[in-house]
């Protein structure tokens, strides 16, 4: 749930999603769900010559299981907060 909440806090920001098939999609994070499926709006493919099929697509839904990386702007990410949240989760999981 930690990263679901983390991505929810990033809705509206511009991100680059790199998929396991090496396709990179740049866009605005519209929404995310518990499976970390991602919906992006106003997308642009970083290498359109290699992937011409995305030319007529403005919004897309990306299945969470095919994501390799989500690249975020550094100033959008509070690493201290993330660390604290991760520690809390670790404690909770240990208790369970």
């Amino acid at each position: 749930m930690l990263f679901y909440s983390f991505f929810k806090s990033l809705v509206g920001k511009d991100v680059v999603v790199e998929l396991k098939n090496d396709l990179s999609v740049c866009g605005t994070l519209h929404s995310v769900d518990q499976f970390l499926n991602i919906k992006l709006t106003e997308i642009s493919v970083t290498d359109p010559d290699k992937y011409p099929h995305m030319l007529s697509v403005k919004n897309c839904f990306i299945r969470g299981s095919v994501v390799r990386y989500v690249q975020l702007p550094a100033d959008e990410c509070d690493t201290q907060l993330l660390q604290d949240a991760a520690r809390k989760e670790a404690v909770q999981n240990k208790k369970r």
Partner: protein
Amino acid sequence: MNYLPGTASLIEEIDKKLLVVLRDGRTLIGYLRSIDQFANLVLHRTIERIHVGKKYGDIPRGIFVVRGENVVLLGEIDMEKEGQLPLEEVKIEEILAMQQEEQTVKKQEEEKKKKALVERGIQPHVDQIQEDF
């Protein structure tokens, strides 16, 4: 997939003309009629679009039921942009022939790479499922 606001749901994409990229590299275009929590899809009036270079060809496929695990992404087709594609549509036979050529060239390159690695003592890693994307 649920009905909570702010969650990425495919419900909103129902009845829209979507472009679906599959893990084996195929591109399907069809109207989304049905979904479930695994992102299994039912596509209506589906065409398979094959791209080679700046050319493409469409093969009509009818109704497709796609298992969610094979889906890479779903894109909403913008009809205006569809009309302005800088790509040239060609006949099915032609695009299939071009695709075959592309596959042979790729295969040859793969063989060369494999040979080079084996010569250097690195054993080829065989994947269970060939994912072409």
